[in-house]
């Protein structure tokens, strides 16, 4: 038996390596600096590491697409696109968390390493060329999140949320694993491209598929069950209905920084994984699963938008809103086309801008020990903080899909991809539910602009970095709505593996 190390293509996973180093460095730095001294340096160390990682990812843009480490991960533009997106989300989360941790007087020692590691999990989900890696990515992300969700010294809700998330997350992981096993059992391989080839998909980046059994594009019961279970497992992370029930509770209970991280980053990661799995491994079975996903998407959009109407807590409202947006994103996968995939990437970017912006405002308005997350807390904000109110209004209108914001353009791309794929009814259902959504987004704006403040709140100076995030996000929301061409071009180039 000869033993040969596989080709070690370190460069292909360099962005992740940098994140590993960053996580370890923050861990060690915390030990060196002691308990309370190293707060700001840890945050900046994380941001610096993420920036280096992102820089490397950008530098790899023109590298040839390839599989690395025995065909376990793909290093292609899709991976890089999401890597950069995740890193931006991580940096923003660091800025949010820095503000919150300072306020809550909480020890950041483990926070930043866990954040860095969870980012690695997300990158793995996008980069996975093998279901084994998808699973490890999901688990790495989940383990870190279980802790991050419960991260608070002063309040009890985070812990409750964390336990809920842990129990249900483990449940979902079991479904995911079972699904992977059934897919393996049906095709003899866990490599996405090899599964695709076994099911009759043409070409693409395929490694050595030893053991894969060509079954043709006929879905057996076992395979369909496996696909269904993958939908359950990944749908949990994406908060698709009916696997969403944890989301509002967890979003409400978690520290706002982590809520933002989950609603944007984790969701994008789940969709990156869904897209990889369904459009690399199962493209030939699209007729079998697209109707299923279309139904799930419809139920998700309708449920999210309806239940959001009844929320009084802004984090909970944004939680249901993010469920609705998961429905829109799923529409892009239903289209099962290159256009659909590109529109998903575009929407992910746009959604990141809108939602991170909204959460930035939520963070800024919070105060020590008191998050101020009732929607009625926003009453009269336009008089106290006109700029913040204007930004929040922009984000709300964008989330509602009012042109000329990125929210409108994103929905336009997603739904027209669905229409092109023949799903006119799905597009109409999405439109109807998104129109209804205006009602609850507008309620926030109404509070800010048309209701007098309940109490005179001593205006405290908002954290400059978080305000900067909100401003940049506001700018992006408009700019991407007027000039979407650049991002859609990049998104198209990043999804060339979809046919």
């Amino acid at each position, binding site marked *: 038996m000869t033993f040969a190390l596989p080709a070690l293509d370190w460069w292909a996973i360099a962005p992740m390596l940098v994140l590993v180093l960053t996580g370890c460095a923050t861990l060690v730095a915390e030990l060196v600096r002691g308990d309370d001294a190293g707060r700001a340096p840890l945050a900046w160390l994380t941001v610096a590491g993420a920036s280096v990682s992102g820089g490397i990812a950008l530098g790899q843009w023109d590298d040839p697409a390839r599989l690395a480490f025995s065909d376990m991960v793909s290093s292609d533009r899709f991976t890089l696109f999401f890597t950069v997106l995740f890193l931006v989300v991580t940096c923003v989360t660091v800025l949010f968390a820095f503000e919150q941790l300072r306020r809550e007087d909480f020890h950041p020692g483990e926070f930043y390493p866990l954040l860095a590691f969870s980012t690695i999990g997300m990158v793995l989900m996008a980069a996975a060329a093998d279901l084994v890696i998808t699973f490890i990515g999901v688990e790495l992300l989940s383990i870190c999140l279980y802790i991050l969700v419960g991260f608070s010294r002063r309040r009890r809700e985070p812990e409750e949320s964390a336990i*809920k998330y842990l*129990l*249900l997350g483990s*449940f*979902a992981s079991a479904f995911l694993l079972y699904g992977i096993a059934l897919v393996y059992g049906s095709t003899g391989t866990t490599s996405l491209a090899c599964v695709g080839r076994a099911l009759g998909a043409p070409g693409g980046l395929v490694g050595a598929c030893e053991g894969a059994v060509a079954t043709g594009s006929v*879905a057996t019961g076992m395979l*369909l069950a496996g696909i*269904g*279970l993958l*939908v*359950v497992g990944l*749908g949990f992370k994406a908060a698709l209905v*009916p*696997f969403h*029930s944890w989301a*509002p509770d967890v979003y409400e209970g978690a520290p706002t920084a982590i809520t933002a991280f989950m609603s944007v980053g984790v969701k994008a990661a789940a969709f990156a994984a869904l897209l990889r799995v369904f459009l690399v491994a199962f493209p030939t079975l699209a007729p*079998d*699963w697209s*109707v*299923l996903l279309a*139904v*799930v998407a419809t139920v998700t959009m*309708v*449920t999210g938008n*309806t*239940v959001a*109407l*009844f929320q009084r807590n802004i984090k909970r409202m944004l939680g249901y809103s993010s469920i609705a947006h998961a429905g829109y994103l799923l529409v892009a996968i239903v289209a099962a086309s290159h*256009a659909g995939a*590109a529109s998903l990437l575009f929407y992910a970017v746009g959604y990141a801008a809108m939602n991170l912006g909204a959460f930035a405002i939520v963070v800024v308005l919070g105060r020590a020990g008191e998050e101020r997350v009732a929607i009625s807390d926003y009453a009269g904000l336009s008089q106290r903080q006109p700029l913040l109110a204007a930004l929040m209004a922009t984000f709300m*209108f964008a989330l509602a899909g*009012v*042109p*000329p914001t990125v929210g409108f*353009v994103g929905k*336009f*791309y997603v739904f*027209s991809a669905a*229409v*092109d794929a023949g799903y*006119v009814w799905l597009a*109409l259902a999405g*439109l*109807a539910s998104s*129109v*209804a959504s*205006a009602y609850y987004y*507008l309620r926030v704006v*109404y509070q800010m*602009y*048309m*209701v*007098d403040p309940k109490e005179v709140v001593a205006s405290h100076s908002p954290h400059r970095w978080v305000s900067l995030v909100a401003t940049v996000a506001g700018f992006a929301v408009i700019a991407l709505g007027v*000039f*979407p*061409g650049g991002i*859609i*071009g*990049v998104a*198209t180039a990043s999804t060339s593996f979809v046919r």
Partner: protein
Amino acid sequence: MIDLLWLVPVLPLAGAVALLAGGRRLGRGAVVATGTGSVALAFVVAAGAVTDLVANGPAMRGVEVHLFPWLAWGSGSDAVTVAEAGLLLDPLSALMILVVTGIGTLIHLYSSGYMAGDEGFARYYAYLNLFTFSMLVLVLANNLALLFVGWELVGFCSWALIGFWFERKAAAAAGQKAFITNRVGDLGVLAALFLVWANWGTFSFHALPGSTLPGVLDDPARVLATPLVALAIPLLLLLGVTGKSAQIPLFTWLPDAMEGPTPVSALIHAATMVTGGVYLVARVHPLFDQSPEAQLVLGTTGAVTAFVAATIATVQVDVKRVLAYSTVSQLGFMVLGLGAGAYGAAAFHLMTHAFFKALLFLGAGAVIHGVASQQDLRKMGGLIRYMPVTAWTFIVGWLAIIGVPGLSGFFSKDLILARAFGRGLVDPAFLVLFGVALVTVGITAFYMSRLVFLAFLGEYRGGSVHPHEAPPSMLVPLVVLAIGSIGAGWVGIPPFLLGEAGHATVIEQFLAPATLATGTWEGTLDHSTEWIITGLSVAITLAGAGLAGVAYLGEGPISPVVTELVAPFRRLFAGRWFVDEAHGALVIRPLARVASFLASVDVGVVDGAVALVVAGVRGIGALLARLQSGYVRGYAVTMLVGAVAVVASAWALR
């Protein structure tokens, strides 16, 4: 100047940005100069561009100005533009930009007097400029997607301006109502947008089937829509029209929108934004020409709205509400014209209405300004003695709207009547609509006369408040608009009145390249029929006005028999035909019930059942507490049920 067309929308936008950014630091004079100046400049550029367009000769076609690709697919050189940011100047949009910038300038100027004492002066001007920009995007867009951007933006500005005085609860609520109601209409437009995309793969107006305009995207081999889609698209657009242009069943937001400042009512809720729906139909009329059924629905909506709104106007006591219902009614006339396929006539009425209705609103604003914010007609009277300029210009507007021969409203309203009658010769249903419209003409004369008699004639009933005339900054626009209200109709004098042959008026000929219905009826009546229609409408107008004179100028009490007779009608009209109640009972409450049911079920199909049991046992309070407690076991069961459903349907749906 056509090359500079982009400046037309950009100038007001620049004004809005400048005012939003630096408004607080600018003095009032500077704010007025920035706000009014930018729109006035836009008017100058627009006028120059239209002159250039006219110079292209009688066969003038649309001129497109391409700015930048907006919505595109693909990357780099492979990118395919789906919808560009591009402007289309043709006779129809030329008319619209002149109206928007021209009347917009006057209303900006007027506002400097009307809003003089207001705290949010700069904010007001910023919104007003932003609105002007949005409206210009709406009318200049060269494709449906960009038009929709303008469509939504004007809705946003309308919301902001209605709720401008948000200290008044009613104002804030009215803003909400306007926005939400319009979202319902927007759904129609969006759905139509995607159906157009699904069928023709383009949003460009040029490439619409049956378009009279040439375009690079035109393709004779284009697949025609199926009959169902050919009917669905116009009907969905009609839903948008009923929202934006306040038609039945979505018209109730417009009277409530009167909570906004009066110049806003004049600009947005009378002259420009609410005509957006009319413009939309005229713009994409080939889609309507394809479907006579949709046209009939359109025409019926218009005629019925005109009638219903006019009846409601007869019993309103708030001067602005009378005018609001009058606007709804007049928009109904336009929509009737559209339904009859007379797009040119509808656009003509749109223009004349912009003049006289802006005049009436600004006049009403001057009155309100002069009597210490009193809007109740019962507390006015005899104002002609205190504010002669306002009164006389208002009287011009009154004569114009009721259609006294020679003034603008006479020509445009009669043109619509004539076209509706002509359509009736081929499609008898339109004869009924014509009849309804004719009756409405009489009611219009009645309620407008009532308004004038109650406000300006008779004795002053306002008690201790001493009315005073408005400042010059408000009077100048009134005078200009009064001149327009008289003269604007002269471009549409029908040939038979001038003793000439032919049928099409000058304005219709001008608009023809953009609005001529293709492949459908082209109105031809003989001149004697036209004389009869005109005679009838003038007679009915005089009758309506005379009746108002008897009722409101006559001495002594009205006979109790008459009072008894009209009482049930008064109740119906005063109750606004109970449309709001119908919305509540038929749409809003059922929807709310469904939504709250969904919300209670959401916590899990399982949990929903559990919730019902618990609710039964311990009451609603416990239910809510339980729903929020987030019961993990319930969630897990939900997931399991979901997993069963997904795996089972993966099977069933393959």
